[in-house]
């Protein structure tokens, strides 16, 4: 298969990934109660695959809502300000909110999203991310549930893309340099 040939190495195999997702779900199950009526906020597009697997392991009562965001381009990178293409369907005033992300890199986008959500007065606001790249962090953002800390490599798969490709790989792989060099 062509897409897999572009992957230099498998960083996190499907089995390891699935086991960790189940563990994260158990941690979430013990953090919240049914009475909390937990609301998971999925940030599209990258987190949809993680969300699909994570939520199927959740036993605590919860609902799911989506946000899709897009950057304004290079000029606003340092501020983390993003354009909200799709906002939440429901008001989160008084709700227990858990933001579900695929990866936290500089932390700027997450910081912007959490500041935006906090203005809506949720009862609590936590963050669950599958991956975190601490070496890339530019702004300190608290992460409550982290799947894996990964080195600063170009990772794809399980929702993460390069130019919209590789999202559907069932594992996390490192992309070969020649695939992304010269294109950015």
């Amino acid at each position, binding site marked *: 298969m*062509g897409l897999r040939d572009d992957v230099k190495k498998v960083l996190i195999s499907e089995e390891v990934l699935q086991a960790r997702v189940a563990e994260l779900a158990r941690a979430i199950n013990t953090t919240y109660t049914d009475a909390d009526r937990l609301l998971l906020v999925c940030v599209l597009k990258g987190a*949809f695959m993680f969300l699909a697997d994570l*939520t199927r392991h959740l036993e605590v*009562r*919860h609902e799911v809502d989506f946000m*899709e965001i897009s950057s304004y381009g290079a000029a606003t990178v340092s501020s983390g300000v993003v354009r909200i293409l799709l906002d939440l369907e429901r008001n989160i005033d008084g709700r227990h909110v858990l933001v579900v992300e695929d990866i936290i890199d500089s932390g700027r986008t997450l910081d912007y999203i959490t500041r935006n959500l906090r203005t809506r007065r949720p009862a609590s606001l936590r963050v669950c991310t599958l991956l975190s790249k601490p070496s890339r962090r530019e702004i300190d953002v608290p992460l409550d549930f982290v799947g894996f800390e990964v080195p600063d490599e170009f990772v794809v798969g399980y929702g993460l893309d390069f130019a919209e*490709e590789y999202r*559907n790989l*069932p594992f996390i792989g490192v992309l070969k340099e020649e695939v992304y060099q010269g294109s950015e």
Partner: protein
Amino acid sequence: MKAPDAIERVLLDEGAIAARVCELAAQISADYAHAKDVVLVGVLKGSFIFLADLARRLTVPHHVDFIALSSYDRGAVSTGAVRLIMDTRASVTGRHVLIVEDIVDTGCTLDYLLRTFRARKPASLCTCALLSKPERRQVEVLVDYLGFEIPNVWVVGYGLDYADRFRTLPYIGVLKRDVYE
């Protein structure tokens, strides 16, 4: 995982769904083997679990895009009027578009989507749905890749909800009648 009290019975278990998703993915992969520039359009919120599992089984390179729709209706009776909340991010003109839905009920939503996307002149336009309720159909729509035909019962799980609940059950269950009546 124990079934919530609101579930009358399991209609399709995890194993049956996974096996059928594999079959659909194999069929789609074969049909699109020579297609360049395939885009799966997932209809939120219901299709996200199906899409996540289907995409992982596909061997053809493809992009994923999402649209969000809302009905103008409240309650169980549908008039078929659809409001587009979020459009696809990328243009679909000249591309091979596969719309991914959780369920085809009256057919109104899918009919709206087909008309909307056809006007954008894709290279091809097909539909994939995990479930279909033929008894409920008001508008004739072609589902190219269908997981299961089911009877006219209220189903939840694997993306399908009742008032936003039970959406992420890993199986398709039938909701007890007294829950929604």
